[in-house]
């Protein structure tokens, strides 16, 4: 059963001088519980595709269905709420908030669910325990290594129990040892039933996932 379905997606970037076709007629489905890799050369549109799939950006044409719900009909406020409950994000450059402690960063998605302070803290501690960083709760991102930052980002992505995690080059800024640790975490999550869509340059890592989709020049080729 497809948990995500993208149909006829086009994305055009327009400036005053130039029009760029980032995605052209992309059709794609992601099955529930799948661990899907998206690959392609730089500028092929894979990150653009992931952003649209994650409802962070709007397609110029086409529809995105998540859990059979047509998200392209939703307004900003509805999209925010939908993302909060259904999706988790992991970025290449972690995107942690430097002025918040580790635990405050992890609690972020729950803040927008109006969860009580106790609920937020307990749940955040739980996921930090899971990623092995409960001893760093009060630290700030600037005090952590790259791998630790990415683990915090994974904890943040998990804290709301999302059905789907979207990861954009999660090991891109890490050395191979740390990259392997992160991938182990993601595999564990997938075994527990979380659907994961991951953009990666690394063929070796991609081959360990269940399916690979390839993009070239804004089009899906495989």
């Amino acid at each position: 059963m497809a948990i995500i379905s993208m149909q006829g997606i086009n994305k055009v970037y327009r400036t005053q001088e130039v029009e760029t076709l980032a995605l052209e007629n992309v059709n794609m489905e992601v099955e529930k519980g799948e661990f899907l890799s998206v690959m392609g050369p730089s500028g092929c549109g894979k990150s653009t595709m992931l952003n649209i799939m994650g409802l962070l950006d709007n397609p110029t044409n086409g529809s995105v269905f998540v859990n059979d719900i047509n998200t392209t009909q939703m307004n900003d406020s509805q999209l925010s709420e939908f993302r909060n409950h259904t999706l988790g994000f992991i970025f290449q450059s972690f995107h942690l908030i430097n002025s918040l402690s580790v635990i405050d960063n992890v609690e972020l998605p729950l803040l927008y669910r109006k969860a009580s302070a106790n609920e937020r803290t307990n749940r955040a501690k739980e996921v930090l325990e899971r990623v092995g960083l409960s001893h760093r709760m009060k630290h700030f991102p600037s005090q952590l290594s790259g791998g630790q930052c990415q683990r915090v980002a994974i904890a943040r992505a998990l804290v709301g129990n999302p059905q789907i995690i979207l990861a954009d080059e999660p090991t891109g800024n890490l050395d191979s040892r740390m990259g392997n640790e992160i991938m182990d975490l993601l595999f564990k999550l997938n075994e527990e039933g979380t659907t994961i869509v991951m953009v990666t340059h690394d063929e070796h890592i991609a081959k360990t996932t269940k399916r690979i989709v390839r993009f070239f020049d804004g089009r899906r080729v495989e």
Partner: protein
Amino acid sequence: MFKIYFKQTLAMLKQNRLISTVSILGTALAIMMIMVIIMVQHINEMDMAPEVNRSRTLYLKNYQQKSRDTLNREWTSGDLPYELYKQYLSEIKVPETVSLITREQENAILTIEGTNNSYTCSQTKTDGNYWKIISFDFIEGKPFDQADYQSGLKKAVITEKIAKKLFGTSAATGKTVNVNYVPYTITGVVKDVSPVFTFSQGDLFVPLTSVYGYKNSWGVMLILAKSKADFQAIKQEVRATERRYEANNPKYTLNFWGPYDHRTQKDNIDSGTAVDESKAPKRILLILVILFLVPAINLSSFSMSQIKKRSEEIGIRKAFGAKKYTILIQVLYENLITSLIGGFIGLLLSYGAIIWLREWLLDFPDEGSIPAGAFISPVVFLFVFLSCIVLNLLSAGIPALRTLRMNIVESLKRK
């Protein structure tokens, strides 16, 4: 949620000390200028002991009488003459009470029989009703009353300062003091009054009728209304007395300038013209608008650059479910904390400015002091708080709204 925003604001202030200092100082200076204006108005207008009835008191200071003869346009104007007051104004019905006070241009000389000491002091001549309008703090005795005034009895009320000079630590009530070599009995001693209180400052108070030649004196009429709602009716009654005068004196026209409320009477310094009562509020409003807008525009460009630096954070928050209004509230709340810190510093700076520049701002001598109640006042604090909110909205609201329009992906790309 707000606890986390508060923690984050403090963390950001610590992380960017120079920028935080500039931002807070900018706000502090803006609030300082605004609060100097507000507090000067407040000090000049608020009900404050002993002038506890300012808000329901009208003041009539000047008059002008003109001949109707177009060939011989003689006219007189000036302070309110005693005779005019007595005949036409002292019995008006609408107010709760009325009083006339005069202030001797020269100081009075005080001497005590049997001593060689003499002291000069300022003298206020008034009536028994005065003590119902101005609420002095009597530390000894009591004031002279209307019956004393009507009988022209030589009774006096002195201030604490004068009592100490004349009698040291002994009680002054019942004792005799020579005022310009005429013996007066002291009926009461009041606490010293700050020069900021125009209609109650003075060292010595005597019944107007006790002074030789009092019928040729002139002064200011104080009109205590039962409530502010009666102001219009009182003004109409004063207009009616003008018409009554003109009916009795057909060769002349008479204009009383006023009566004016406490704020407007300050502008009534020229006996030849009436005061435009809307002028002062408009002037103050214009000054306040400028004082809000100029720093707000400067701070808004500063806020804009600060918010742009946080575009990535805004993108992250939106990605994880924050709605636009949630982020707007966060940005305004964080900026409000900075504004309140700046506001507190600005308030302290405004106290310093008022104390340092009191002669220029409040027009009274250096040796005077401003009552503490002028500074510690709910009105003042409310104005500071509202000023911080307005400045916050003007300086951070618009930049925040503009940044919120940015697409999440664009926001995340900015570092």
